[in-house]
């Protein structure tokens, strides 16, 4: 009886994402988007109806109660997502509350707020695989709209937009430093066209399954460059967008990923214990590694879904990225630009991006003297 109650309570741990009506990656994305919104002060920011987009809101007698109702709907929905109570209904309610707040107050409209509303609502409407397809389509439509609108703006094409924004309004140190070495408006025009071309590339990359991984990393780097140049994180948009790329992740079923560590290495045993403790969904089965003494073993091997093998830094990252508990502090950091000095925050974000960037793992593997030039699978045999 006690055990059943404990297990039932454990199902509602916010760090668990498996075993609900939503795929774990989608549920995790919704939880993290809600976290970003809370950290950015959206609970208090939800306004009462004022200059609404739909005049219906002006007919409601008590604007203060409408605001309270929307705040309650948003918070209740978000908590239902966090605690795995009714994640689909909760996500829809939280997203709908944001959308209603936008429709009720024109001043509340920002692209970031609408993005979070749409993502949460689409999460709430998830059904089978079609739901995930539609969530991915949301990104394709967003980048298509963004690229097309910019392409049709003359100031974006001839560089006047970037020159005025970065050169005059932002006083971007980086822009002001590079621009004098180049012909007039060259840098601004190049930046404008590279953003337009980059966004059109994302439309294609995020729509084609084979290119989605490249698309996601291109988007992450593009947006990080953009917050570097702009010296602002566009309120909730940057952090919510980054975590919502989880909808493109291939999330394995619990217990289908095997992790191999060499028992003699204290650091690897420690990492196994650390990861096991955080792995509330039971994603990874840890096993000892058979070491071929003739050649040095490769540290930390993780056998992912579809037979993928990760080793070295890639294995470390692959393990960390399967643990929802890891995402919470990282998301809090990315959403905390308003409480940390901006340059420090930016440095931390760049460190995170570069740490998890696939090329970093690849370079680390090539430079590591322990890896050798051969296939790491040949140096050690996983022992089931």
């Amino acid at each position, binding site marked *: 009886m006690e055990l059943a109650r404990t297990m039932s309570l454990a199902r509602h741990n916010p760090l668990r994402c498996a075993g609900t009506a939503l795929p774990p990656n989608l549920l995790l994305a919704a939880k993290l988007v809600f976290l970003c919104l809370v950290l950015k002060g959206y609970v208090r920011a939800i*306004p009462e109806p*004022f*200059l609404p*987009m739909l005049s219906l809101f*002006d007919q409601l007698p008590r604007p203060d109660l409408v605001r309270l109702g929307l705040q309650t709907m948003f918070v209740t929905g978000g908590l239902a997502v966090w605690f795995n109570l009714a994640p689909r209904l909760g996500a829809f309610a939280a997203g709908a509350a944001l959308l209603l707040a936008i429709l009720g107050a*024109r*001043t509340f*409209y*920002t*692209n*970031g707020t*609408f993005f979070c509303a*749409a993502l949460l*609502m*689409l999460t709430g*409407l*998830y*059904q089978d695989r*079609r*739901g995930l397809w*539609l969530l991915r*389509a*949301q990104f394709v*439509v*967003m*980048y*298509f*709209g*963004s690229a*097309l*609108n*910019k392409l*049709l*703006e003359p*100031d*974006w094409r001839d560089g*006047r*937009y970037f*020159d*005025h*924004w970065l050169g*005059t*309004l932002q006083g971007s140190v980086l822009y002001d430093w590079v621009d004098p070495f180049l012909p007039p408006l060259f840098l601004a025009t190049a930046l404008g066209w590279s953003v337009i071309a980059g966004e059109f590339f994302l439309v294609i990359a995020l729509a084609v399954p084979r290119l989605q991984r490249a698309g996601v990393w291109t988007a992450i780097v593009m947006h990080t460059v953009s917050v570097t140049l702009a010296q602002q994180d*566009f309120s909730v*948009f940057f952090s919510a967008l980054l975590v919502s790329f989880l909808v493109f992740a291939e999330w394995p079923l619990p217990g289908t990923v095997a992790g191999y560590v060499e028992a003699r290495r204290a650091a690897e045993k420690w990492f196994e214990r650390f990861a096991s403790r955080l792995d509330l969904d039971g994603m990874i089965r840890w096993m000892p590694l058979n070491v071929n003494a003739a050649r040095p073993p490769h540290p930390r091997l993780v056998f992912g879904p579809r037979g993928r093998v990760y080793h070295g830094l890639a294995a470390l990252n692959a393990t960390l990225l399967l643990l929802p508990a890891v995402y919470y502090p990282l998301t809090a950091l990315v959403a905390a630009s308003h409480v940390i000095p901006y340059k420090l925050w930016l440095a931390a974000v760049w460190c995170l991006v570069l740490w998890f960037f696939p090329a970093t793992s690849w370079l680390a593997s090539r430079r590591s003297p322990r890896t050798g030039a051969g296939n790491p699978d040949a140096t050690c045999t996983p022992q089931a």
Partner: protein
Amino acid sequence: MMRLVQRNWRPALAAGLVLFQVVMIVHARFDPRRYFCWAPHDAQNEYGIEVRVGGRVLSREETWARYRDPLQGLDPRSIEHVLLMVRQHERTYGKNDGALVRVTYRTNGGPWREWNWPEP
């Protein structure tokens, strides 16, 4: 039929939400307001609002209370967003105030322009 609806209402509603944005992207070609069409930071608009009610110019705080928007600011959306707020307020909540409003603005460092309420 009922079973079909029961099985597909979620994807249908989700597809409707995505399609709505596609429609708004097309609509944005004919409407300068540009809501729900993914036009963030398409323009940088510097603007200032001057409001006269009963011959007196409203202060910064009074202007904020009137439009919930600053007296002077920078808006990365279409300037129509600012003009629409003023227009909508003066047509509804403030229609009996007889306010005279002047919005001066420039887009992407271009020439300064002026917009007045009541509109000519």
